[in-house]
């Protein structure tokens, strides 16, 4: 078969290992892997790694409702530039993604996007934590993950019922673990820094109590459980223990939690405000170790755009969240691979690509680079060194907490269903 695109001269890295080779693509499929392949268009991948496209389990696209901060179009462009070929949109939009009609709207808007847009659905109506959302009608449209992200389901009995119901549908529940009676009114991690700054802090235990409860409820119900943006050493320890006991539990960590600590809040710049909050150096080390051991399965960005005027509010009033899609790969290579914690580039790509794809049931992504596989690929130069700037990239927002950091690793091309949506590090649409 005549190839449309050949990615030439790169090193292929996927679940089966690492090898030199060209990748030929025709239509939306990989049609050849080997040496000396030719095609209509060639992408020079000399010095680059060619991997399955990345899959983000945790993306706030802000549409519908907060289009001034991000749209599905701008957010998915940022994703493509970051090497992502699929994202899972979070449901804390306005209106909440808690019914078939809103799911349809998001999927419809996502069809034109330069990455596959999947959406999660809310566990409870309006994410209010009171009544189960119609999960079955959303599941019929392909929703595979349900979460009330932005807050956790507080009521124990309701969470138990949600797990039982979800298990029956074969869908996954994902939890933003935060006990609000311990976290209400707080704006950062509770510790020496919050005490000094005079800002109300939330203890690590606000997260850990809910991790503990959901492990117990998962044991009770037999339901699979996914923990979002794990930030504390205690949570990592509980998840490790539960996995060692054979429980069906998965977890993700966000780039900011393995890159920044609560000391970043010292200048009262709300760019550094996020939920769960930036924690202590010990928590950061535990998150890194959890990713290295695989107890934390995936790196998920929690890409959370906010308009500049919102991030200029007083620290305690500003909305939480920070950008991530265009920085996750470089932060992972720089802070996980280069920090001597025993994590390889292959481990990082596993956590960015095939592991999250499997967790969310996003079947066409994260697949081995082999003839017949869907052509969803990322090509990046792992040695390209760059300095993160304040522009915010393709996002409509600019809440970047990494400005001035020297990192390595830059995406040069992203292939979505056979189309080069990013070339030479530039979005093609």
């Amino acid at each position, binding site marked *: 078969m005549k190839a449309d695109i050949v990615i030439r001269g790169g090193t292929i890295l996927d679940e089966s290992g690492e090898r030199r080779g060209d990748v030929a693509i025709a239509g939306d499929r990989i049609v050849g892997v080997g040496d000396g392949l030719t095609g209509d268009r060639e992408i020079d991948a000399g010095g680059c790694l060619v991997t399955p496209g990345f899959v983000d389990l945790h993306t706030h696209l802000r549409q519908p409702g907060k289009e001034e901060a991000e749209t599905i179009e701008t957010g998915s462009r940022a994703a493509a530039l970051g090497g992502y070929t699929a994202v899972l949109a979070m449901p804390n939009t306005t209106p909440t993604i808690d019914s078939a009609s809103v799911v349809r709207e998001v999927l419809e808007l996502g069809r034109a996007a330069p990455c596959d847009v999947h959406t999660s659905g809310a566990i409870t109506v309006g994410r209010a934590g009171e009544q189960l959302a119609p999960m079955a009608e959303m599941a019929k449209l392909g929703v595979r993950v349900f979460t009330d992200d932005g807050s956790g389901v507080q009521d124990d009995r309701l969470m138990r019922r949600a797990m039982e119901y979800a298990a029956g549908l074969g869908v996954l529940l994902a939890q933003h673990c935060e006990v609000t009676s311990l976290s209400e009114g707080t704006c950062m991690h509770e510790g020496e820094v919050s*005490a000094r*700054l*005079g800002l109300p802090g939330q203890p690590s235990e606000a997260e850990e109590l809910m991790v503990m409860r959901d492990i117990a409820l998962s044991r009770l119900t037999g339901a699979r459980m996914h923990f979002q943006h794990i930030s504390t050493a205690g949570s990592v320890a509980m998840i490790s223990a539960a996995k060692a006991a054979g429980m069906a539990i998965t977890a993700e960590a966000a780039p900011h939690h393995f890159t920044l600590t609560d000391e970043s809040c010292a200048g009262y710049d709300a760019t550094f405000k996020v939920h769960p909050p930036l924690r202590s150096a010990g928590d950061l080390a535990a998150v890194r170790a959890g990713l290295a051991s695989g107890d934390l399965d995936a790196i998920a960005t929690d890409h959370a755009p906010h308009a500049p005027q919102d991030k200029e509010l*007083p620290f305690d009033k500003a909305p939480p969240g920070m950008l991530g899609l265009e920085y996750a790969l470089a932060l992972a290579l720089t802070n996980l691979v280069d920090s001597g914690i025993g994590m390889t580039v292959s481990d990082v790509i596993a956590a960015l690509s095939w592991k999250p794809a499997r967790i969310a049931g996003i079947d066409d992504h994260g697949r081995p680079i082999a003839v017949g596989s869907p052509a969803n690929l990322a090509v990046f130069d792992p040695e390209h060194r760059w300095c993160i700037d304040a522009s915010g990239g393709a996002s409509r927002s600019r809440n970047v907490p990494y400005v001035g950091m020297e990192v390595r690793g830059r995406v040069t091309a992203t292939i979505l269903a056979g189309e080069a949506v990013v070339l030479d590090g530039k979005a093609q649409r």
Partner: protein
Amino acid sequence: MTTSTHAPHLLSVTDLTRDQIEELLTLTDTFVEVSRRPIPKVPSLRGKTVVSLFFEDSTRTRLSFETAAKRLSADVMSFAVSSSSVNKGESVRDTIETIEAMGIDAVIVRHRSSGVPKQISQWTNASVINAGDGWHQHPTQALLDAYTIRSHFGSLEGRRVAIIGDVKHSRVARSNMEMFTSLGAEVVLVAPRTLLPVTTESWNVTATQDIDSVLGDIDVAYLLRMQRERMDEALVPSMREYSADYGLTMERAAKLRPDTLIMHPGPMNRGIEIESEVAQLPNAVITEQVFNGVAVRMAVLFMLLGSGLHLRNRAPDDSIDKEMIEMEGDQS
């Protein structure tokens, strides 16, 4: 108009070196003397414009700052939030940029959120003076408290100060812990654990829950205002229990040495943290604190805006331009 893009600010006690604090306290002596003159006004800041920007209600601090600025002959603009566009949704940044466009030299900021003066300092070329932000800092209160203690004991070196009450929510406590320890005093916090910061490791202080164990061995009993809302947050069981365990009653005051100062930043809750008669004792210096507050704020404004310039890190041997504090009366 301020032309420097690096206008000096006073945001936190943390930003002050011990030398700078000592200079400010020494300069305060001068302004205490000015305040006692028949016409307590000097031309130091003539032509300077100072704005008081209070996003949170305050009577004494605002009056104190405005009096200080007027005694230095500055033009004072008062920005009352309740009648301003802030209530129409204008952001703090737009507010400060609007005020700055009118041409100002300093802005005195009070806000209920910690860190707002710091944020404002990044959006303006004027000097920013923190008049109290959230639970964080109230540096001029700390300066006037240090000045008051110094005026009684000569120095804070080796003195023992008990800060009693709701330290957790108190910008006065945070500022004073830093101020007093910086000047060589020992600080002991007296409060139930619920009213202490989650950790005090940032400061070189100790803490106890037993007020009666410290009363006989302190130079200053510094009482903090206890707010009724704290009961709703389950921080104390009741005001009655708080008063019984931490209130400075006449009975407890009798355990103090005769020269131990009783201080309070105001406004007092008589009958809660302090029994009414205690506030009238000869060693209660609460109104003296208020008097000194004006002179301290004159010193701060003079340092930031006048010819003092010491907070701009000018060489320490530069002396104050004496002409700037000559009596107004001499010239008229």
